[in-house]
């Protein structure tokens, strides 16, 4: 089981589940990060700071702690 935090930059994956409370899930879902969607991590970001992903045509920045709660499957 991999989390979004462990995904390599430039790689694509499918979201399997989101761990955490209802409120947290709702906030991610509002931004389009939900079970079953394809997600792509941006290339060449620094090893610190937020993670930037592409979902649909939107770009989302999220903290590393949050990203580690998004479980993914690399395709």
């Amino acid at each position: 089981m991999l989390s979004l935090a462990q995904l390599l930059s430039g790689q694509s994956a499918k979201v399997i589940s989101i761990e955490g409370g209802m409120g947290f899930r709702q906030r991610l879902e509002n931004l389009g990060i939900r079970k079953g969607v394809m997600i792509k991590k941006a290339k060449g970001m620094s090893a610190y700071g937020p993670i930037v992903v592409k979902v649909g045509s939107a770009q989302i920045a999220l903290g590393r702690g949050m990203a580690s709660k998004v479980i993914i499957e690399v395709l």
Partner: protein
Amino acid sequence: MKVLLIGNPNVGKSVIFSRLTGARVIAANYPGTTVEFAKGSMSFPNIEAEVIDAPGTYSLEPTSKAEEVATSLIDDADLIINVIDSTNLERNLYLTLELIRKTNKPLLVVLNMWDETKHKGVVIDKDKLEDSLGVPVVTTCALTGEGVKELVQRMGQAKISSLKDLKDPIWFEIGEVVKKVQKLFHRHHTPLDVLQDLSIKPPFSFIIAAVVVFLSFSIIRFIGEGLINYIFDPFFKNFYSPVIMKLSGFLIEGSFFHSTLIGDLVGGGVDYGVSFGLLTTGFYIPIAVVLPYIFSFYLILGLLEDWGYLPRLAILGDRLFHKVGLHGYAIIPMILGLGCNVPGALASRLFEARREKFITATLLAIAVPCMAQTAMIINLLGRFGGQYVLLVFSIIFCLWLTLGRIMNIFTRGQSPEILIEIPPYRIPHLKSILKKLWMRINWFLKEAFPIVLLGILIVNILYFLKIIDFLGNIFSPIITKLWGLPQETIGALVVGFLRKDVAVGMLRPLNLSLRQLITGVTILAIYFPCVATFMVLVKELGIKDMLKSTLIMLFTATLVGFALNNILSFIGIQ
């Protein structure tokens, strides 16, 4: 009739709003909250209505106060216009379907950013979408105004969809709709995409940020000083002063009315920095010193906001802000605070956690000087050289960092993480920028100008009743011994509770040395926020946290004043 514009953040809703409404647009507060939204009216042959631009929201299950307001605004609306970003149809449709299912109001959907779909490889069948949703769909490009006419013409056709009664999960239904109406094609990166990516990728991101910030401040300074030197100063000198001098002759120097309205004459004439009358300094400070900078600051801020750069700055600043217990998005209230602390404090509601609110508010009040104050500091210290202005701001920034670190360690709780959408770069729409600028300047003139006058009136009364002398004697040990300032500085400290710009202006007639000026303006910047900010902070933080925050301010000011006085003397600045 009331028309409500609702949609996700960054879909160009405000541009549609400016296109629909006339010149008179106001910012309103939702009752009982500090959340602002814009209100205006539209008048076309087929429809006359009040238009409300709701805060951006992703869904009707609100996750923040702004979203709550957006949701509650629906109840009062007669017609809902849902603005959608065509390049991100799937996610935007979530709100649309919620609107269809949960509200019982006529709905019309606007596919905005229609022109962008072409280079993004998105093809949407608009007619099929209209069939699937069961409400009218209009395509627009708000920037060029294309489609806005059709939007107005079709407003009468808005209706309640028959999709209302479907019970499938919303995401499933969206999937079905999207499958039917949208096709995606691969396409190549444009130069704008490349710039967009670079601006979040280190090391380019830092270089771009440095250039943007430097250019912004240079332009703000250039426009501000230009307006002062070529328009406002000549106006006051050549047209206003003669009128005032006539009035002065009429009022008799030395009388109560003369000293309140005109103040002291210097060398037989008015000195707007020193006279301190209602009609002289009271008009000069807000109009000729502060307004030019308010204008240039909000012009540039509006451009940065609409271009979409600020979220990128937030990502870049994330690590720095984590050091003070916040996350990168806290840069938004801080930047707003540089204009005026009140909107900055209002923006701190963006944070749900008490700890974050407390740290943001305290840092804002102590270490983020507003543009009115900055303009006065430049006016006062600038004549000794720009390096001293820079010195004061460096001191304030160090203080921001140090205090933030300390509060991060000693305030209980965790610092949450950033979660934001990074909108694509967009070319700002001039009319929307000017409307926003006008709303902000109007607000400044209405809110700040009367308080400046009140402040100057109170100064005059306090001097007249010798209360300033009395307070000066009481606080003299701190002011003279610790800070090395003359006892009369108490006047500025008292007025600083009302308006910081007037307070800084009051240092001018005291003939302070350079060391005293630097110490004085720094203390004035940090010891307390102005009363307008204070009231907002009490509302946002509660009285208990605000008292704590106030204690930190007073303590910090005393300490920093003492340190500056000694360090500056030590390095030979007298």
